[in-house]
Protein backbone atom coordinates (compact mmCIF):
# COMPACT_ATOMS: atom_id res chain seq x y z
CA UNK A 1 0.00 0.00 0.00
CA UNK A 2 1.18 3.47 -0.83
CA UNK A 3 2.46 5.56 2.04
CA UNK A 4 -0.11 7.40 4.06
CA UNK A 5 0.04 8.49 7.67
CA UNK A 6 -2.49 5.84 8.69
CA UNK A 7 -4.21 2.84 7.22
CA UNK A 8 -7.97 3.12 7.80
CA UNK A 9 -10.33 0.60 9.39
CA UNK A 10 -14.11 0.42 9.69
CA UNK A 11 -15.06 -0.47 13.26
CA UNK A 12 -18.75 0.40 13.36
CA UNK A 13 -21.65 0.06 10.94
CA UNK A 14 -25.28 1.12 11.02
CA UNK A 15 -28.15 1.34 8.58
CA UNK A 16 -31.90 1.85 8.64
CA UNK A 17 -33.89 -1.14 7.40
CA UNK A 18 -35.95 -1.24 4.21
CA UNK A 19 -34.58 1.78 2.34
CA UNK A 20 -37.05 1.14 -0.46
CA UNK A 21 -39.95 2.66 1.51
CA UNK A 22 -41.06 6.16 2.44
CA UNK A 23 -41.32 7.01 6.15
CA UNK A 24 -43.87 9.83 6.48
CA UNK A 25 -43.71 10.01 10.28
CA UNK A 26 -39.93 10.42 10.39
CA UNK A 27 -37.85 13.50 9.69
CA UNK A 28 -34.52 13.28 7.92
CA UNK A 29 -32.95 13.86 11.32
CA UNK A 30 -34.67 10.79 12.78
CA UNK A 31 -33.35 8.62 9.97
CA UNK A 32 -29.81 9.98 10.17
CA UNK A 33 -29.73 9.59 13.95
CA UNK A 34 -31.03 5.99 13.75
CA UNK A 35 -28.16 4.88 11.51
CA UNK A 36 -25.46 7.06 13.07
CA UNK A 37 -26.16 5.97 16.65
CA UNK A 38 -26.35 2.35 15.52
CA UNK A 39 -22.88 2.66 13.97
CA UNK A 40 -21.46 4.44 17.02
CA UNK A 41 -22.89 1.78 19.34
CA UNK A 42 -21.61 -0.97 17.05
CA UNK A 43 -18.13 0.53 17.47
CA UNK A 44 -18.54 0.52 21.25
CA UNK A 45 -18.31 4.31 21.35
CA UNK A 46 -20.50 7.14 22.57
CA UNK A 47 -21.43 10.02 20.26
CA UNK A 48 -19.05 12.47 21.96
CA UNK A 49 -16.13 10.23 20.99
CA UNK A 50 -16.61 11.30 17.36
CA UNK A 51 -14.21 14.11 16.48
CA UNK A 52 -15.10 14.55 12.83
CA UNK A 53 -17.94 13.60 10.50
CA UNK A 54 -18.98 13.58 6.87
CA UNK A 55 -22.53 13.40 5.55
CA UNK A 56 -23.88 12.89 2.06
CA UNK A 57 -27.29 13.45 0.56
CA UNK A 58 -28.58 13.22 -2.95
CA UNK A 59 -28.80 16.97 -3.21
CA UNK A 60 -30.38 19.89 -1.43
CA UNK A 61 -33.69 19.12 -3.13
CA UNK A 62 -34.06 16.02 -0.97
CA UNK A 63 -34.74 17.78 2.32
CA UNK A 64 -34.97 21.34 1.04
CA UNK A 65 -32.05 22.38 3.14
CA UNK A 66 -28.60 23.38 2.05
CA UNK A 67 -25.53 23.52 4.27
CA UNK A 68 -26.70 20.82 6.65
CA UNK A 69 -23.38 20.37 8.45
CA UNK A 70 -24.42 22.41 11.47
CA UNK A 71 -27.79 20.72 11.78
CA UNK A 72 -26.15 17.30 11.71
CA UNK A 73 -23.57 18.13 14.39
CA UNK A 74 -26.38 19.54 16.51
CA UNK A 75 -28.78 16.65 16.04
CA UNK A 76 -26.17 14.01 16.85
CA UNK A 77 -24.82 15.95 19.80
CA UNK A 78 -21.27 16.00 18.50
CA UNK A 79 -20.83 19.79 18.06
CA UNK A 80 -18.37 21.46 17.66
CA UNK A 81 -16.87 18.50 15.76
CA UNK A 82 -16.84 19.34 12.05
CA UNK A 83 -19.39 17.82 9.66
CA UNK A 84 -18.47 18.03 5.99
CA UNK A 85 -21.50 17.78 3.66
CA UNK A 86 -21.47 16.23 0.21
CA UNK A 87 -24.16 16.29 -2.43
CA UNK A 88 -23.05 13.87 -5.10
CA UNK A 89 -26.31 12.16 -6.03
CA UNK A 90 -26.54 8.41 -5.60
CA UNK A 91 -22.84 7.83 -4.94
CA UNK A 92 -22.79 10.52 -2.24
CA UNK A 93 -22.33 8.03 0.58
CA UNK A 94 -19.18 6.55 -0.90
CA UNK A 95 -17.89 10.01 -1.86
CA UNK A 96 -18.31 10.92 1.82
CA UNK A 97 -16.34 7.78 2.66
CA UNK A 98 -13.50 9.09 0.49
CA UNK A 99 -13.43 12.24 2.61
CA UNK A 100 -13.70 10.24 5.83
CA UNK A 101 -10.79 8.10 4.72
CA UNK A 102 -8.71 11.23 4.09
CA UNK A 103 -9.54 12.55 7.57
CA UNK A 104 -8.17 9.42 9.25
CA UNK A 105 -5.32 8.73 6.81
CA UNK A 106 -3.96 12.24 7.29
CA UNK A 107 -3.92 11.78 11.04
CA UNK A 108 -5.90 14.95 11.62
CA UNK A 109 -8.94 13.14 13.09
CA UNK A 110 -9.10 10.02 15.28
CA UNK A 111 -12.72 8.81 15.16
CA UNK A 112 -14.71 9.74 12.11
CA UNK A 113 -18.40 9.12 11.46
CA UNK A 114 -19.44 8.88 7.81
CA UNK A 115 -23.13 9.02 6.86
CA UNK A 116 -25.29 9.11 3.76
CA UNK A 117 -29.07 9.52 3.65
CA UNK A 118 -32.07 10.19 1.49
CA UNK A 119 -35.46 11.65 2.43
CA UNK A 120 -37.01 12.08 -0.96
CA UNK A 121 -40.64 11.91 0.23
CA UNK A 122 -40.21 15.35 1.80
CA UNK A 123 -39.33 16.94 -1.48
CA UNK A 124 -42.15 19.06 -2.95
CA UNK A 125 -41.60 17.94 -6.52
CA UNK A 126 -40.48 14.34 -6.09
CA UNK A 127 -39.72 13.90 -9.77
CA UNK A 128 -37.79 17.15 -9.88
CA UNK A 129 -35.38 15.71 -7.35
CA UNK A 130 -34.72 12.72 -9.54
CA UNK A 131 -34.04 14.98 -12.49
CA UNK A 132 -31.48 17.09 -10.79
CA UNK A 133 -28.81 14.43 -11.13
CA UNK A 134 -27.88 16.35 -14.18
CA UNK A 135 -26.02 19.28 -15.61
CA UNK A 136 -29.52 20.70 -16.26
CA UNK A 137 -28.89 23.28 -19.02
CA UNK A 138 -28.98 20.80 -21.91
CA UNK A 139 -30.69 17.75 -20.52
CA UNK A 140 -33.02 18.60 -17.67
CA UNK A 141 -34.64 21.57 -19.41
CA UNK A 142 -35.35 19.37 -22.41
CA UNK A 143 -37.39 17.07 -20.22
CA UNK A 144 -34.92 14.28 -19.65
CA UNK A 145 -34.31 12.58 -16.35
CA UNK A 146 -31.17 10.75 -15.47
CA UNK A 147 -32.91 7.41 -15.70
CA UNK A 148 -33.15 8.07 -19.43
CA UNK A 149 -29.38 7.97 -19.40
CA UNK A 150 -29.40 4.55 -17.77
CA UNK A 151 -31.91 3.23 -20.26
CA UNK A 152 -30.01 4.61 -23.25
CA UNK A 153 -26.74 3.20 -21.95
CA UNK A 154 -28.37 -0.16 -21.26
CA UNK A 155 -29.92 -0.37 -24.70
CA UNK A 156 -26.56 0.47 -26.22
CA UNK A 157 -24.77 -2.12 -24.11
CA UNK A 158 -27.29 -4.86 -24.83
CA UNK A 159 -27.28 -4.36 -28.59
CA UNK A 160 -23.57 -3.59 -28.85
CA UNK A 161 -22.50 -6.74 -27.00
CA UNK A 162 -25.00 -9.04 -28.68
CA UNK A 163 -27.58 -9.69 -25.96
CA UNK A 164 -30.93 -10.84 -27.29
CA UNK A 165 -34.10 -10.29 -25.31
CA UNK A 166 -34.10 -9.42 -21.63
CA UNK A 167 -32.83 -12.69 -20.14
CA UNK A 168 -29.77 -10.97 -18.64
CA UNK A 169 -32.07 -8.51 -16.87
CA UNK A 170 -34.16 -11.41 -15.61
CA UNK A 171 -31.07 -13.23 -14.33
CA UNK A 172 -29.81 -10.12 -12.56
CA UNK A 173 -33.17 -9.28 -10.99
CA UNK A 174 -33.69 -12.86 -9.83
CA UNK A 175 -30.23 -12.98 -8.26
CA UNK A 176 -30.84 -9.74 -6.37
CA UNK A 177 -34.25 -10.95 -5.21
CA UNK A 178 -32.62 -14.18 -3.99
CA UNK A 179 -30.11 -12.28 -1.85
CA UNK A 180 -32.70 -9.78 -0.66
CA UNK A 181 -34.91 -12.58 0.70
CA UNK A 182 -31.93 -13.55 2.90
CA UNK A 183 -31.18 -10.08 4.25
CA UNK A 184 -33.44 -9.07 7.15
CA UNK A 185 -32.82 -5.39 6.41
CA UNK A 186 -33.83 -5.64 2.75
CA UNK A 187 -37.02 -3.91 1.68
CA UNK A 188 -38.40 -7.07 0.08
CA UNK A 189 -37.34 -9.41 2.91
CA UNK A 190 -40.15 -11.72 3.89
CA UNK A 191 -42.07 -11.30 0.64
CA UNK A 192 -42.49 -14.18 -1.83
CA UNK A 193 -39.88 -14.67 -4.54
CA UNK A 194 -41.04 -13.52 -7.97
CA UNK A 195 -41.45 -16.08 -10.72
CA UNK A 196 -38.16 -16.32 -12.61
CA UNK A 197 -39.77 -16.10 -16.05
CA UNK A 198 -41.77 -13.02 -15.09
CA UNK A 199 -38.55 -11.01 -14.79
CA UNK A 200 -37.41 -11.16 -18.41
CA UNK A 201 -38.37 -7.59 -19.25
CA UNK A 202 -36.81 -4.15 -19.17
CA UNK A 203 -38.66 -3.08 -16.03
CA UNK A 204 -37.38 -5.85 -13.76
CA UNK A 205 -34.13 -4.05 -12.95
CA UNK A 206 -35.51 -0.77 -11.71
CA UNK A 207 -34.55 -0.06 -8.16
CA UNK A 208 -37.12 0.35 -5.40
CA UNK A 209 -36.59 3.91 -4.28
CA UNK A 210 -37.18 5.18 -0.79
CA UNK A 211 -35.67 6.69 2.30
CA UNK A 212 -32.90 5.59 4.60
CA UNK A 213 -29.50 6.24 6.04
CA UNK A 214 -26.26 4.29 6.34
CA UNK A 215 -23.30 5.11 8.57
CA UNK A 216 -19.84 3.79 9.37
CA UNK A 217 -17.25 4.67 12.01
CA UNK A 218 -13.62 4.92 10.91
CA UNK A 219 -10.44 4.77 12.99
CA UNK A 220 -6.76 4.24 12.24
CA UNK A 221 -6.09 0.57 11.51
CA UNK A 222 -3.49 0.14 14.24
CA UNK A 223 -6.19 0.92 16.82
CA UNK A 224 -8.87 -1.24 15.23
CA UNK A 225 -8.22 -4.20 17.52
CA UNK A 226 -9.44 -2.15 20.49
CA UNK A 227 -13.02 -2.23 19.23
CA UNK A 228 -15.58 -5.01 19.69
CA UNK A 229 -15.91 -6.28 16.12
CA UNK A 230 -13.53 -7.94 13.71
CA UNK A 231 -11.88 -5.03 11.89
CA UNK A 232 -12.34 -4.42 8.20
CA UNK A 233 -9.79 -2.29 6.36
CA UNK A 234 -10.28 0.21 3.56
CA UNK A 235 -7.26 -0.73 1.44
CA UNK A 236 -8.22 1.22 -1.65
CA UNK A 237 -10.72 4.00 -2.24
CA UNK A 238 -11.25 6.41 -5.07
CA UNK A 239 -13.68 8.62 -6.92
CA UNK A 240 -13.57 9.12 -10.69
CA UNK A 241 -15.69 11.87 -12.19
CA UNK A 242 -16.65 13.01 -15.65
CA UNK A 243 -19.35 15.18 -17.24
CA UNK A 244 -23.04 14.68 -16.48
CA UNK A 245 -24.04 14.88 -20.12
CA UNK A 246 -25.38 11.47 -21.16
CA UNK A 247 -24.38 11.80 -24.80
CA UNK A 248 -20.76 11.86 -23.63
CA UNK A 249 -21.22 8.28 -22.39
CA UNK A 250 -21.82 6.87 -25.83
CA UNK A 251 -19.77 9.43 -27.70
CA UNK A 252 -16.28 10.43 -26.75
CA UNK A 253 -15.60 10.73 -23.02
CA UNK A 254 -14.36 14.29 -22.39
CA UNK A 255 -11.14 13.36 -20.64
CA UNK A 256 -8.55 14.63 -23.07
CA UNK A 257 -5.04 13.40 -22.31
CA UNK A 258 -6.19 11.94 -18.98
CA UNK A 259 -8.06 9.14 -20.78
CA UNK A 260 -7.01 5.85 -19.10
CA UNK A 261 -3.90 4.37 -20.65
CA UNK A 262 -4.14 1.29 -22.79
CA UNK A 263 -7.83 1.67 -23.65
CA UNK A 264 -9.18 2.27 -27.14
CA UNK A 265 -11.76 5.07 -27.06
CA UNK A 266 -14.16 3.41 -29.47
CA UNK A 267 -14.15 0.24 -27.36
CA UNK A 268 -15.24 2.17 -24.28
CA UNK A 269 -18.50 3.46 -25.74
CA UNK A 270 -21.22 2.11 -23.50
CA UNK A 271 -18.70 1.55 -20.70
CA UNK A 272 -18.06 3.78 -17.70
CA UNK A 273 -14.60 5.20 -18.26
CA UNK A 274 -14.75 7.10 -14.97
CA UNK A 275 -15.24 3.83 -13.08
CA UNK A 276 -12.44 2.14 -15.00
CA UNK A 277 -10.17 4.99 -13.88
CA UNK A 278 -11.49 4.83 -10.31
CA UNK A 279 -11.04 1.05 -10.10
CA UNK A 280 -7.47 1.27 -11.36
CA UNK A 281 -6.66 3.84 -8.72
CA UNK A 282 -8.30 1.85 -5.91
CA UNK A 283 -6.68 -1.45 -6.94
CA UNK A 284 -3.29 0.23 -7.17
CA UNK A 285 -3.73 1.64 -3.66
CA UNK A 286 -4.84 -1.72 -2.33
CA UNK A 287 -2.24 -3.62 -4.35
CA UNK A 288 -4.84 -6.07 -5.60
CA UNK A 289 -5.97 -7.34 -8.97
CA UNK A 290 -9.49 -8.08 -10.13
CA UNK A 291 -8.91 -11.82 -9.57
CA UNK A 292 -8.45 -11.20 -5.82
CA UNK A 293 -12.04 -10.01 -5.45
CA UNK A 294 -14.28 -12.43 -3.53
CA UNK A 295 -17.51 -10.47 -3.88
CA UNK A 296 -18.69 -7.09 -5.16
CA UNK A 297 -21.54 -4.66 -4.70
CA UNK A 298 -22.51 -2.63 -7.76
CA UNK A 299 -25.19 -0.11 -8.62
CA UNK A 300 -27.86 -2.27 -10.23
CA UNK A 301 -30.23 0.14 -11.92
CA UNK A 302 -31.27 -1.18 -15.37
CA UNK A 303 -28.23 -2.83 -17.01
CA UNK A 304 -25.75 -0.60 -15.17
CA UNK A 305 -24.47 -3.52 -13.12
CA UNK A 306 -23.23 -5.17 -16.32
CA UNK A 307 -20.74 -2.53 -17.36
CA UNK A 308 -19.74 -1.88 -13.77
CA UNK A 309 -18.73 -5.54 -13.44
CA UNK A 310 -16.81 -5.02 -16.70
CA UNK A 311 -15.19 -1.84 -15.41
CA UNK A 312 -14.12 -3.55 -12.18
CA UNK A 313 -12.28 -6.11 -14.31
CA UNK A 314 -14.35 -9.01 -12.96
CA UNK A 315 -15.39 -9.74 -16.55
CA UNK A 316 -14.20 -8.74 -20.01
CA UNK A 317 -16.02 -5.86 -21.75
CA UNK A 318 -19.50 -7.02 -22.68
CA UNK A 319 -19.56 -10.07 -20.40
CA UNK A 320 -21.17 -8.39 -17.37
CA UNK A 321 -24.66 -9.55 -18.30
CA UNK A 322 -23.47 -13.10 -18.88
CA UNK A 323 -21.94 -13.05 -15.39
CA UNK A 324 -25.55 -13.21 -14.14
CA UNK A 325 -26.78 -15.53 -16.90
CA UNK A 326 -24.03 -18.06 -16.08
CA UNK A 327 -24.78 -17.97 -12.37
CA UNK A 328 -21.37 -16.49 -11.58
CA UNK A 329 -23.03 -13.84 -9.40
CA UNK A 330 -24.68 -16.46 -7.18
CA UNK A 331 -23.49 -17.15 -3.66
CA UNK A 332 -21.41 -20.12 -4.84
CA UNK A 333 -20.49 -18.47 -8.14
CA UNK A 334 -17.15 -17.08 -9.30
CA UNK A 335 -17.80 -13.64 -7.87
CA UNK A 336 -21.07 -13.04 -5.98
CA UNK A 337 -22.65 -9.70 -6.82
CA UNK A 338 -24.96 -7.53 -4.68
CA UNK A 339 -25.24 -9.89 -1.73
CA UNK A 340 -27.37 -7.35 0.14
CA UNK A 341 -30.07 -7.65 -2.50
CA UNK A 342 -28.92 -4.55 -4.34
CA UNK A 343 -31.11 -1.62 -5.27
CA UNK A 344 -33.55 -4.07 -6.82
CA UNK A 345 -34.38 -5.90 -3.60
CA UNK A 346 -32.53 -4.23 -0.72
CA UNK A 347 -33.72 -0.75 -1.67
CA UNK A 348 -32.44 2.50 -3.05
CA UNK A 349 -32.12 5.47 -0.70
CA UNK A 350 -30.04 7.60 -2.98
CA UNK A 351 -27.53 9.34 -0.69
CA UNK A 352 -27.10 6.14 1.35
CA UNK A 353 -26.43 3.71 -1.51
CA UNK A 354 -22.66 4.01 -1.63
CA UNK A 355 -22.40 3.40 2.11
CA UNK A 356 -25.00 0.64 2.17
CA UNK A 357 -22.77 -1.25 -0.25
CA UNK A 358 -19.78 -0.82 2.05
CA UNK A 359 -21.85 -1.79 5.11
CA UNK A 360 -22.82 -5.03 3.35
CA UNK A 361 -19.18 -5.72 2.50
CA UNK A 362 -18.22 -5.17 6.14
CA UNK A 363 -20.93 -7.61 7.27
CA UNK A 364 -19.59 -10.17 4.78
CA UNK A 365 -15.95 -9.64 5.77
CA UNK A 366 -16.85 -9.95 9.44
CA UNK A 367 -18.55 -13.24 8.59
CA UNK A 368 -21.90 -12.09 9.99
CA UNK A 369 -24.06 -12.35 6.86
CA UNK A 370 -25.90 -15.50 7.91
CA UNK A 371 -27.77 -17.21 5.10
CA UNK A 372 -26.20 -15.01 2.43
CA UNK A 373 -22.64 -15.30 3.76
CA UNK A 374 -20.08 -15.69 1.00
CA UNK A 375 -17.67 -18.46 2.00
CA UNK A 376 -14.15 -17.29 2.86
CA UNK A 377 -14.88 -13.65 1.99
CA UNK A 378 -11.62 -11.73 2.37
CA UNK A 379 -11.64 -8.99 -0.23
CA UNK A 380 -14.82 -7.15 -1.18
CA UNK A 381 -15.27 -4.31 -3.64
CA UNK A 382 -18.04 -1.73 -3.90
CA UNK A 383 -18.70 0.40 -6.99
CA UNK A 384 -21.30 3.13 -6.91
CA UNK A 385 -22.78 5.42 -9.54
CA UNK A 386 -23.76 9.04 -9.07
CA UNK A 387 -25.87 10.75 -11.70
CA UNK A 388 -25.69 9.05 -15.10
CA UNK A 389 -22.10 7.85 -14.56
CA UNK A 390 -20.64 11.22 -13.64
CA UNK A 391 -19.46 10.29 -10.13
CA UNK A 392 -18.07 6.77 -9.89
CA UNK A 393 -16.61 5.41 -6.69
CA UNK A 394 -14.62 2.27 -6.02
CA UNK A 395 -13.88 0.98 -2.51
CA UNK A 396 -11.73 -2.05 -1.74
CA UNK A 397 -12.21 -3.56 1.72
CA UNK A 398 -10.35 -6.53 3.23
CA UNK A 399 -10.13 -8.38 6.52
CA UNK A 400 -7.18 -9.87 8.42
CA UNK A 401 -7.34 -13.17 6.51
CA UNK A 402 -6.70 -11.53 3.16
CA UNK A 403 -3.30 -12.37 1.71
CA UNK A 404 -1.82 -10.67 -1.32
Amino acid at each position, binding site marked *: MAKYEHKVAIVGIGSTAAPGRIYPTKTWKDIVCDAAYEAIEDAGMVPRDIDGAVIAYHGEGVNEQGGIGGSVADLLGIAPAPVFPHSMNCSGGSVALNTGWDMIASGKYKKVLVMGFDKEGDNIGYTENINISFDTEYDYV*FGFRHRDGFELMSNYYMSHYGYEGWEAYGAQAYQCHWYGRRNPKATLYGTPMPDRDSLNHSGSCFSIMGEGCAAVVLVAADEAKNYPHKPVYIDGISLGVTSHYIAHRIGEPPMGPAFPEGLVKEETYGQSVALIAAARKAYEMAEIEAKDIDLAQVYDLTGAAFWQIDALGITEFGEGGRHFLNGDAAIDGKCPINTSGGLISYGHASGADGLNQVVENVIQLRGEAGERQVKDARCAVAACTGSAFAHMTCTVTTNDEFER
Partner: protein
Amino acid sequence: MSQFQEQIYRHTTASATRSWRERKGRYLLEGTRCKSCGAIHFPRRTACAECNSRDLEPYRHPFTGMIVEANICWQATGVHIGYGERIPRVSTVIQLDDGVCVLAEVTETPIEKIVPGARVEMVTKKLHRESNSTWMYGYKFVVVDE
Protein backbone atom coordinates in the same frame (compact mmCIF):
# COMPACT_ATOMS: atom_id res chain seq x y z
CA MET B 1 -56.45 29.07 -10.26
CA SER B 2 -53.44 29.42 -12.37
CA GLN B 3 -52.98 32.25 -14.82
CA PHE B 4 -51.91 29.58 -17.32
CA GLN B 5 -54.43 27.53 -19.22
CA GLU B 6 -52.30 24.44 -19.12
CA GLN B 7 -51.24 22.65 -16.01
CA ILE B 8 -48.14 24.05 -14.37
CA TYR B 9 -45.78 21.17 -14.08
CA ARG B 10 -43.26 22.65 -11.73
CA HIS B 11 -43.54 24.34 -8.41
CA THR B 12 -40.34 26.16 -9.10
CA THR B 13 -39.97 26.95 -12.77
CA ALA B 14 -36.61 27.30 -14.41
CA SER B 15 -35.04 30.72 -14.40
CA ALA B 16 -35.81 32.63 -17.59
CA THR B 17 -32.46 34.39 -17.43
CA ARG B 18 -30.68 31.12 -17.32
CA SER B 19 -32.44 29.69 -20.35
CA TRP B 20 -32.07 32.98 -22.24
CA ARG B 21 -28.30 32.72 -21.84
CA GLU B 22 -28.35 29.30 -23.51
CA ARG B 23 -30.72 30.27 -26.33
CA LYS B 24 -28.18 29.88 -29.12
CA GLY B 25 -27.35 26.38 -28.01
CA ARG B 26 -31.01 25.42 -28.01
CA TYR B 27 -32.03 27.22 -31.23
CA LEU B 28 -28.91 26.80 -33.32
CA LEU B 29 -26.98 23.89 -31.82
CA GLU B 30 -24.27 26.38 -31.09
CA GLY B 31 -21.42 24.90 -29.09
CA THR B 32 -17.78 25.86 -28.93
CA ARG B 33 -14.60 25.20 -30.85
CA CYS B 34 -11.16 25.42 -29.28
CA LYS B 35 -8.89 27.83 -31.13
CA SER B 36 -5.82 26.14 -29.67
CA CYS B 37 -6.41 22.44 -30.41
CA GLY B 38 -9.43 22.50 -32.71
CA ALA B 39 -11.64 20.31 -30.52
CA ILE B 40 -15.37 20.94 -30.91
CA HIS B 41 -17.86 20.69 -28.08
CA PHE B 42 -21.56 20.47 -27.41
CA PRO B 43 -22.93 21.72 -25.08
CA ARG B 44 -20.71 24.78 -25.14
CA ARG B 45 -17.73 24.71 -22.82
CA THR B 46 -16.07 27.33 -20.69
CA ALA B 47 -12.63 25.74 -21.03
CA CYS B 48 -11.50 23.09 -23.49
CA ALA B 49 -11.69 19.56 -22.02
CA GLU B 50 -8.85 18.42 -24.27
CA CYS B 51 -6.22 21.12 -23.72
CA ASN B 52 -7.73 23.38 -21.01
CA SER B 53 -7.51 26.44 -23.25
CA ARG B 54 -9.99 29.23 -22.57
CA ASP B 55 -9.59 30.55 -26.08
CA LEU B 56 -12.88 29.20 -27.44
CA GLU B 57 -15.12 30.49 -30.19
CA PRO B 58 -18.82 29.84 -30.87
CA TYR B 59 -19.24 26.91 -33.24
CA ARG B 60 -22.46 25.85 -34.94
CA HIS B 61 -22.88 22.12 -35.23
CA PRO B 62 -24.65 20.67 -38.27
CA PHE B 63 -28.41 20.15 -38.03
CA THR B 64 -28.17 16.63 -39.42
CA GLY B 65 -26.95 13.41 -37.93
CA MET B 66 -27.73 9.81 -37.07
CA ILE B 67 -29.41 8.09 -34.15
CA VAL B 68 -26.84 6.17 -32.12
CA GLU B 69 -29.18 4.84 -29.47
CA ALA B 70 -32.85 5.24 -28.72
CA ASN B 71 -35.13 4.52 -25.81
CA ILE B 72 -38.90 4.47 -25.93
CA CYS B 73 -40.44 4.74 -22.48
CA TRP B 74 -44.18 4.09 -22.09
CA GLN B 75 -44.28 5.18 -18.49
CA ALA B 76 -45.58 8.71 -17.91
CA THR B 77 -43.68 10.59 -15.25
CA GLY B 78 -46.32 13.01 -14.04
CA VAL B 79 -44.75 16.36 -13.40
CA HIS B 80 -41.97 15.89 -15.87
CA ILE B 81 -41.16 19.07 -17.75
CA GLY B 82 -40.94 18.80 -21.48
CA TYR B 83 -42.94 15.60 -21.66
CA GLY B 84 -45.66 16.06 -19.08
CA GLU B 85 -48.13 13.19 -19.35
CA ARG B 86 -47.27 12.59 -22.97
CA ILE B 87 -46.16 9.07 -23.72
CA PRO B 88 -44.17 7.51 -25.11
CA ARG B 89 -41.18 9.47 -23.95
CA VAL B 90 -38.61 9.18 -26.69
CA SER B 91 -35.01 9.80 -25.76
CA THR B 92 -32.14 9.34 -28.14
CA VAL B 93 -28.44 10.00 -28.45
CA ILE B 94 -27.74 11.52 -31.83
CA GLN B 95 -24.35 11.74 -33.44
CA LEU B 96 -24.24 14.90 -35.52
CA ASP B 97 -22.41 14.85 -38.83
CA ASP B 98 -19.36 16.48 -37.26
CA GLY B 99 -19.09 13.61 -34.78
CA VAL B 100 -20.42 15.32 -31.65
CA CYS B 101 -23.15 13.48 -29.72
CA VAL B 102 -26.27 15.17 -28.31
CA LEU B 103 -29.11 13.97 -26.10
CA ALA B 104 -32.41 14.80 -27.78
CA GLU B 105 -36.02 13.85 -28.30
CA VAL B 106 -37.12 12.55 -31.69
CA THR B 107 -40.56 13.84 -32.56
CA GLU B 108 -43.19 13.59 -35.33
CA THR B 109 -41.81 10.24 -36.38
CA PRO B 110 -43.45 6.78 -36.29
CA ILE B 111 -41.97 4.80 -33.39
CA GLU B 112 -40.72 1.99 -35.62
CA LYS B 113 -38.47 4.46 -37.45
CA ILE B 114 -36.74 5.62 -34.24
CA VAL B 115 -33.90 3.12 -34.36
CA PRO B 116 -30.10 3.30 -34.30
CA GLY B 117 -28.77 4.21 -37.71
CA ALA B 118 -31.74 6.35 -38.76
CA ARG B 119 -30.86 9.75 -40.29
CA VAL B 120 -32.28 12.75 -38.48
CA GLU B 121 -32.63 16.49 -38.91
CA MET B 122 -33.00 19.16 -36.26
CA VAL B 123 -36.28 21.02 -35.77
CA THR B 124 -37.09 23.81 -33.31
CA LYS B 125 -39.98 23.07 -30.97
CA LYS B 126 -41.85 24.63 -28.10
CA LEU B 127 -40.67 23.12 -24.81
CA HIS B 128 -42.27 24.58 -21.69
CA ARG B 129 -42.95 27.75 -19.72
CA GLU B 130 -40.25 29.74 -18.05
CA SER B 131 -40.50 31.63 -14.78
CA ASN B 132 -41.68 34.82 -16.50
CA SER B 133 -44.39 32.82 -18.34
CA THR B 134 -42.73 33.02 -21.77
CA TRP B 135 -42.25 29.82 -23.68
CA MET B 136 -38.93 28.11 -23.97
CA TYR B 137 -38.04 26.74 -27.38
CA GLY B 138 -35.34 24.28 -28.26
CA TYR B 139 -34.17 21.54 -30.57
CA LYS B 140 -35.75 18.19 -31.22
CA PHE B 141 -35.08 15.92 -34.18
CA VAL B 142 -37.17 14.21 -36.85
CA VAL B 143 -36.21 11.10 -38.80
CA VAL B 144 -35.74 11.91 -42.51
CA ASP B 145 -35.90 9.46 -45.37
CA GLU B 146 -32.88 9.42 -47.58
